[in-house]
């Protein structure tokens, strides 16, 4: 206690006094001093100015501004050669004033990367060996540092820019000095300073034009074009990689596409100093990048749910076109903050710089007409408890609302005249009444849930549209609306009205697997893996891969409450090839069987076979097959129904049974 309170008391010094003293930034003065060789003088005096700089701020700003020397700058010329350039000079060269504007804002840009322009057209970076700093060569030959201690990311930026621009010939371009360039853009990398309240004229444009690969550097505020540099695709890509390493792949493609004159369906202007952008890109890469970025955000790890919206400052992101109209839950509310609302509680998170740079690039591009829908809850995992057809009738229980009451969904499978029909019902927990949601005929149907943060799973189906190759609208009864958009995308709505956009892939055959990938709806923490779907019986291809396959022949002992036939009195067990042979025969029989479930009860002593594979679970078969005992000559029904003409015969290895299967109904 002793005198610690005095230390704390100092912290309570009136803010205005602190602010007054804040103008005396010792560190900044020292930095200037060290480069100019003279003391910079008291604060308030203009600090050194620049000959030319490329601004690369917040990871996303680039531009070229050039200014004249300001009063107050002192220090003698420092002559340095550029050994890396063929035009290396040992004399101080004046900037080419006819190309560059004569004024430069005194506002000190931050995170600046230096690009000096010389009359002979060279652009030159000046670095100091052994330090991460880059210095600016001023018009009088003096140098001043414009970067502080380095970080890995900025180093990458600098290296990338240095590699590309150093020694480049700066050219005067048509339209220089006028309001922009009339050349038609195919795309532009719009690099913004990223400071949310800069409000100044720091927003510069670094446009790359079609074909020529010309990087035109201009001042966005007045359209003044400073000059142009010819860049190759590789160089563009190099810059992109350096600036946004994590987006390198995307920008690689972007650069290529730009030269090809396509790719970005809609790249619009609108970037402001505060970073507003309405860039829209319809390819899926950015979407996936967004997922990636969000996935790595603390906001996500900390119970974040919801989507990116709206009224933020930094991005000026106008939010997704929310078809459902529901309020987003995550807002990038400006600068590095994201607020997350959940259950009436708002949490605020700060997004680390590295991740912010990704979001700055990605988020504005998310608004894509092809991906309409409002992000909903973060989706933890997708659960497909069972997705089968065949003999299994599914009842899926889920606490859909998180209210402690489990909702019941039932998938009923039936076959009529050889056409498989599957119906999904919603079962009212209180009354037991069922509401038919949808019916699928002769197609694979999966049913499952996407579990969200708030216990609001989404019922979805993987039905129509999967195999047809057509765009269909398989609309489930409200409130479980599932609209299949352009295949393989589907928009799934929950009862709460929050749609998810999922990508569904799969085949409607016995070997079907389903991948439901949430591509718009926030983060998929546990990314969806292909879900093996036990669509009835495994086919021959699967059969050959099964380990320790065996067939247990059982007497039917009854029917459970779901109508599933239960076999629990084992008659015999076949192994290996014998089991597989039986399986094949059963399968063949099933292909011709009539699933006349109404007749199950008519055959109380039917026999079933349970095919078991240690690596792939159990397969139940209850088809229209029968066994004939060699000894007695009696037929034992495997399933139900009466025997008809014999189409196939099977004798098990142990000689116990002869199976008669595939009986036409």
């Amino acid at each position, binding site marked *: 206690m002793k005198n610690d309170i005095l230390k704390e008391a100092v912290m309570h010094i009136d803010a205005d006094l602190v602010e007054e*003293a804040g103008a005396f930034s010792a560190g900044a*003065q020292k930095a200037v001093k060290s480069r100019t060789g003279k003391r910079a003088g008291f604060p308030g005096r203009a600090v050194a100015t620049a000959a030319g700089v490329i601004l690369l701020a917040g990871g996303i700003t680039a531009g070229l501004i050039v200014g004249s020397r300001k009063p107050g700058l002192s220090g003698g010329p420092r002559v340095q050669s550029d050994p890396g350039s063929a035009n290396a000079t040992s004399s101080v060269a004046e900037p080419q004033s006819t190309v560059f504007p004569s004024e430069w804002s005194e506002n000190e840009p931050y995170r600046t990367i230096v690009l000096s322009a010389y009359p002979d057209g060279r652009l030159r970076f000046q670095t100091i060996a052994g330090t991460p700093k880059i210095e600016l060569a001023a018009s009088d030959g003096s140098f001043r540092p414009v970067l502080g201690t380095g970080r890995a990311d900025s180093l990458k930026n600098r290296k990338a820019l240095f590699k590309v621009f150093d020694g480049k010939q700066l050219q005067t371009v048509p339209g220089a000095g006028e309001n922009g360039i009339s050349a038609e853009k195919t795309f532009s990398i719009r690099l913004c300073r990223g400071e949310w309240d800069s409000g100044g004229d720091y927003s510069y444009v670094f446009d790359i034009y079609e074909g020529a690969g010309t990087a035109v550097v201009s001042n966005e505020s007045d359209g003044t074009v400073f000059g142009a540099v010819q860049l190759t695709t590789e160089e563009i890509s190099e810059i992109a990689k350096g600036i946004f390493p994590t987006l390198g792949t995307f920008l690689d493609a972007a650069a290529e596409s730009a030269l090809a004159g396509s790719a970005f369906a809609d790249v619009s202007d609108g970037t402001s100093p505060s970073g507003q952008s309405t860039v829209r890109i319809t390819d899926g890469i950015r979407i996936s990048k967004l997922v990636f970025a969000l996935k790595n955000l603390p906001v996500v790890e900390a119970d974040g749910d919801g989507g990116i919206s709206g009224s933020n400052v930094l991005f000026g992101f106008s939010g997704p076109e929310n078809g459902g109209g529901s309020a987003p839950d995550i807002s990038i509310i400006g600068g590095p903050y994201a607020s997350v609302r959940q259950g009436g509680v708002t949490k605020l998170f700060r997004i680390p710089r590295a991740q912010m740079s990704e979001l700055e690039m990605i988020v504005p591009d998310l608004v894509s007409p092809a991906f309409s829908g409002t992000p909903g809850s973060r989706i933890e995992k997708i659960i497909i408890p069972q997705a089968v057809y065949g003999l299994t009738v599914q009842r899926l229980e889920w606490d859909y609302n998180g209210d402690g009451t489990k909702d019941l969904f039932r998938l009923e499978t039936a076959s009529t005249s050889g056409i498989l029909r599957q119906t999904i019902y919603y079962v009212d927990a209180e009354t037991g009444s069922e509401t038919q949601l949808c019916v699928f005929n002769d197609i694979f149907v999966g049913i499952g849930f996407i579990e969200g943060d708030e216990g609001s799973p989404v019922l979805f189906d993987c039905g129509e549209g999967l195999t047809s190759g057509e765009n269909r609208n398989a609309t489930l009864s409200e409130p479980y609306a599932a609209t299949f958009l352009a295949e393989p995308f589907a928009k799934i709505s929950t009862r709460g009205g929050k749609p998810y956009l999922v990508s569904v892939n799969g085949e409607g055959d016995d070997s079907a697997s389903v991948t439901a990938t949430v591509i718009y709806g926030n983060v998929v923490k546990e990314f969806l893996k292909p879900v093996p779907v036990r669509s009835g019986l495994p086919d021959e291809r699967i059969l050959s891969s099964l380990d320790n396959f065996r067939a247990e022949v059982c007497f039917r002992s009854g029917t459970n409450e779901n109508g599933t036939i239960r076999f629990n009195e084992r008659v015999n067990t076949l192994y290996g090839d014998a089991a597989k042979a039986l399986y094949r025969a059963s399968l063949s029989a099933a292909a011709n069987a009539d699933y006349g479930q109404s007749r199950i009860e008519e055959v109380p002593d039917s026999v079933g076979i349970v095919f078991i594979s240690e690596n792939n679970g159990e397969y139940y078969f209850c088809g229209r097959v029968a066994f004939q005992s060699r000894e007695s000559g009696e037929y034992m029904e495997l399933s139900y129904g009466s025997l008809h003409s014999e189409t196939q015969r099977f004798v098990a290895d142990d000689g116990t049974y002869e199976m008669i299967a595939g009986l036409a109904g």
Partner: protein
Amino acid sequence: MEDSTIVKKIIDRDDTAIADVMSKYGKYVRTIARGILSDERDAEECANDAVLKAWENIPQTAPDDLKSYLGMLTRNACISRKRLNSAGKRGGDAEFVSDDEIGEIAGNGTVSETAEAAELGRLISRFLRERDAAERNLFIRRYWYGDRISDIAAAFGMSESAVKMKLKRTRDRLAALLKKEGYVK
């Protein structure tokens, strides 16, 4: 917007308060951060951290003076960052001895245990207002911002010994005031 309104919004977990804070005090906290940290990005991060800290803390302890509170949080964040940046460097701790200097104002005496920091802060503010600008700013740069003596000397165009002497005299005057006011026994 009134500070009280902003504070209430924070207490109510209204995230628009963050935008309000940044609108009203963003420049202030960044100025402080830049005054302590030479790396602009570090300064930015610390300023952001400070606002976040305010968001986290205020529901428990609503400050009487939001601006000062933000300044203090920013300062602390920056000092922490500064310590982190200089960790392991030779003489890395040298710049943080200012805390000890201010703590020694009381000399062999003891500050009253009933004194509150805020109360003492007001007294120190009043004391500083009575000093000339140079003395006041030297004091705050050293003890609030935690500047190195050498940096202060460079910024103010003084020799380091002159800075030390001037600070010593200011501390002595403050010590005398504290004793006179009964805060130091």
